[in-house]
């Protein structure tokens, strides 16, 4: 990057950003933080029938240090909230968070003493996928929205 003359920087960096975004969006290493019912639809999405691998997100990593998208799948109770926060903190930048299912978006119909009313009270969220649980098509839609976001955002390097 240092070799690029000063006056051409704008042109070159925007292309580079695009390329990096393109690379990032098709090599999603996801961390499935699966707690509840939505896990069933997560499994359905990840497996052969809906095949999330078509979107470059076929490799779940079970270590936060290796992953860049945190899929929060299922109800988050107050007991597990600190765990979720810790996992998020352990992930390396750049990182994204997908709130999978209505419980993670808003608490859903669990408006009670034990349930966190939306994980965005604890960690920042990039894409919300509502549904109780969301259908796999809905999940793929959310994933494509995330890819769009990854493509268009300013790429941290």
């Amino acid at each position: 990057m240092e070799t690029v003359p000063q006056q051409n920087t704008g042109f070159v960096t925007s292309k580079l950003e695009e390329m990096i975004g393109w690379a990032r969006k098709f090599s999603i290493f996801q961390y499935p933080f699966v707690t509840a019912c939505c896990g069933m639809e997560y499994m359905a999405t990840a497996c052969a029938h809906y095949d999330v691998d078509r979107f470059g997100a076929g490799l779940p990593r079970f270590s936060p240090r290796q992953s860049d998208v945190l899929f929060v799948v299922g109800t988050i109770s107050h007991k597990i909230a600190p765990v979720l926060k810790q996992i998020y903190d352990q992930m390396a930048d750049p990182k994204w968070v997908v709130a999978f299912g209505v419980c993670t978006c808003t608490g859903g119909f669990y408006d009670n003493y034990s349930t966190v009313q939306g994980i965005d009270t604890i960690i920042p969220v990039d894409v919300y996928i509502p549904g109780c649980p969301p259908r796999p098509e809905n999940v793929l839609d959310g994933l494509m929205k995330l890819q769009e976001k990854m493509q268009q955002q300013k790429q941290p390097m």
Partner: protein
Amino acid sequence: MSDLATEKNITGNNFPSPQAVKRETMMLNVGPSHPAMHGIVRMIVELDGETVQNADVEIGYLHRAFEKDSEQFGYLQVIPYTDRLNYVSPLINNIGYCMAVEKLFDLKAPERAQYIRVIMSELSRVSDHLTCIAASAMELGAFTVFLYMIKQREEIYQLVEEVTGARLTISYARVGGVKGDLPEGFEAKCHTVIKKTREVLRECDQLLTHNRIFVDRVKNVGIISQKDAISYSMTGPFLRSTGIDFDVRRATPYLVYDRFDFEIPVGSTGDCLDRYLVRMDEMEQSFRIVEQAYKQIPAGHVLVNEQGEVVKGEDLVDAAKMGETEGIVTKSATFDPTLAGYHKDNRAEVGTCNKRAAMPPKEETYSNIEGLMNHFKTVMVGHGTRPPAGEAYQAVEGANGELGFYVVSDGTGTPYRVRVRPPCFTIMAGLHKVVEGDSMADIIASFGSVNMIGGELDR
């Protein structure tokens, strides 16, 4: 190290003699966010080398107050919450809860509804066992089986969706019956899926049952004795793997289970292999029950005969909202029975006619004042479905064992107390007995064979 006696070994190096080494156990934390702990169980394991000396299981990470929530709403509104108890076989939960409320009412669902319940329960059981075996096999490295079985589960989901309108949170059962009749042509589709699932099971059986890699990981691993299993009140495949043939469907028959010829597969040693085999055999028995149920199920309207002028349900509603009620009594509406609830003509077959317990058919609600009042009386706060004061315990055979609903009514429209007897709670309570003495890696196999479902474990 200085206080340890050392001795020269053959090579002349100084190594502490085995007797002199101070033996210490190591505490290891597994979970809650661990792929093999299914996200919500934490185990603190005391290890001596690789061997598990002791294990402390901590649960509650998915506690979402099912029992408290059910005390807030009407009896019918609890049904969606029961879906999310055991979300792998939600139909069984639905049916169990509704049966407990029916017991309070001293109601019995119509015969056809009972057969439908049996068919849907057994399909649910198959999808539950498929998920359990698939997930535990994947954790032991058999990824192909996972993909095959989840693909097959997908087909069962599609069947369920056709009947209920949803894939897994279905809310299909109603107090006094089911929401709607089976759709047209469902039986043929069901038989096709059963045939296909049998093929997949045969294939997976060939992949796993005599596969040395798999058998070595599960045979004589995670053994539980009969005595311990009873003391921990374990039920379902876990208990049956120890050789006790307790199955709620046989022991205290409910619905129409006493009319079917089916076997209760049992194991002998109570290890993970036995649990796997019991589950595999149970799926076959479930298919047999479904096939027999189709032979016995009394005929009913699957599609409804229309009389009078037929309008679309939503048009009727719109017209009524606009005040265009002239001649509305002569009209009858068409509804998709899987989406809108049972049709007027087949109400007697799939739902009770007790007006205090069940909602009226939608065309009644939308076309005449009696139906509307009836609907209001069953759903309005302060009215609602009101069983007489009392208490009832109803047990059904869930995929993991005895699933019991203990419902206390105080005569109002809200349950006073709903208690679930969760089958996997008791298994998890005895899990430390199961894993003790095995190696650390065997925890994965043992835990996989529990089929831990967070929704019903923590509620």
